[in-house]
């Protein structure tokens, strides 16, 4: 049984814009799934639907991961500027109520993203990449089953992005989470995921699925391999076709 089942979901916003039309997909427990599509194809909407932040206009979403077992990473770090790094990471625990283990869990989450030394810093004192790490630590602090990531590295420079890609894979492998990763980057989706769902724009539909059968751990050698290049070509072609269908519709 999949962790999340999306069945024939559509979403029409109050202003009449149809973001999604008849989207179906399963998220298997433990997998790394990427949702690839151009801007405005409803990828973020799909993620927000899975998180339960908005309700579908049609279709159903079944999830065995309860709301308490979700972690969400936004495109921006979305940190509270008035709170220290530790207080930001602690937020999900604080909102749930008193938890005597909270300080230890915050410390562990910060250590996992390599920011143990910055617990008492304020967000403005950190670089873009470090802020995103804090955001990831905050998503991990509740030990969620399912991690939803909405183009988390889109605003970062390539060097930082590659490093965070590697760190994310490391975390995924060591923690055994399920990750749904939304991106518009073909290269990022191929590098990270086991499976890629390619979406069409306006309204978003699932165009096709691609399995990336490359072994983990993946590293710089994989990034420069012929296999990686082959998958990237496949994904690019699928994306190009998806966009052509979207425009034709």
């Amino acid at each position, binding site marked *: 049984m999949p962790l999340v089942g999306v069945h024939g979901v559509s979403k029409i916003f109050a202003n009449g814009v149809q973001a999604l039309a008849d989207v179906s997909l399963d998220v298997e427990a433990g997998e790394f799934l990427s949702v690839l599509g151009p801007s405005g194809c409803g990828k973020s909407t799909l993620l927000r639907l899975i998180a339960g932040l908005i309700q579908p206009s049609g279709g159903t979403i079944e999830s065995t991961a309860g709301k308490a077992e979700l972690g*969400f990473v936004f495109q*921006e770090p*979305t940190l*509270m*500027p*008035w*709170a220290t790094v530790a207080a930001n990471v602690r*937020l999900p625990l604080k*909102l749930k109520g008193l938890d005597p283990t909270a300080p230890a869990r915050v410390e562990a989450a910060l250590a996992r993203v390599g920011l143990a030394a910055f617990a008492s810093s304020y967000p403005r004192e950190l670089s873009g990449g470090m802020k995103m790490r804090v955001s990831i630590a905050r998503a991990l602090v509740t030990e969620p089953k399912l991690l939803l990531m909405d183009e988390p590295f889109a605003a970062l420079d390539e060097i930082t992005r590659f490093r965070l890609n590697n760190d994310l894979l490391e975390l995924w492998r060591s923690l055994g989470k399920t990750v749904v990763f939304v991106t518009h980057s073909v290269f990022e989706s191929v590098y990270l995921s086991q499976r890629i769902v390619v979406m069409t724009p306006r309204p978003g539909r699932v165009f096709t699925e691609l399995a990336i059968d490359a072994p983990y751990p993946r590293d710089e050698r994989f990034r420069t391999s012929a296999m990686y290049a082959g998958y990237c070509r496949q994904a690019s072609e699928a994306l190009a076709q998806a966009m052509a269908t979207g425009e034709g519709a």
Partner: protein
Amino acid sequence: MSEAGARGDARPRRDRVLRAVLPVAVLALGVALWEAVVRLYAIPPYVLPSPLLLFSTLIADWSVLSASLLVTLTTTLEGFALAVVGGVGLAVLFNQSRLIEYSLYPYAVILQVTPIVAIAPLLLVYLPQQAAVLACAWIVAFFPVLANTTLGLNSVDRNLADLFRLYGATRAQVLWELKLKAALPYILGGLKIAGGLSLIGAVVAEIAAGSAGAGSGLAYRIVESGYRLNIPRMFAALFLLSVSGIVIFFALSLLSHLMLRRWHESAIVREV
């Protein structure tokens, strides 16, 4: 390289010194000029007292003036405190309930746009003088707090709000942990405006009460001294009012700086 570095270091320090020294120099120059003009043209003190006379009056009449200062400052601070509680409280109420906002907001605006000088005599008819003066200070000061707090409460980052929802935050948690904290810089901005305005409100009401009132605030002293042609005391009282305004402004600026210095862009000294 080193030369540029040295200049970069020296500039902020020189800037700070200039910022402190220049206003004082202008003040000294102005006072000296004033004294010189009064002496040169032998202007009588009931037309324009010299600065020296002003200060000697300040010392000679200190017992009367300090009592008045205390009265005005008390009114101002009480009016300010009520404005903060009322402004923030009403803004929170509006934020929590749209119906209350729709029902009351127009009246808050009406209170704000009707000139306080026109309302003061009416308030003096219906309220005991002390309460009327306090009401004036409050009416003038509460609106900027209300308007700024409302703006702040509505300026919450959408994603942060989603995050709070995702983790099942209660209404109270969203208000305390998110909205009020995000609104803090706006609220502090409102306080800075309200501090000066509550002093103005208190003074306007005291003047409206005038000699008819039993009040003894600084503005009352100004009116009274005017009737008695005791112009030096009038100036001394004016001087104290102006100093009070400056102190209130700097106290609130300091408060704002202390509360925001760790995280808000406005309080951060940028190295250029």
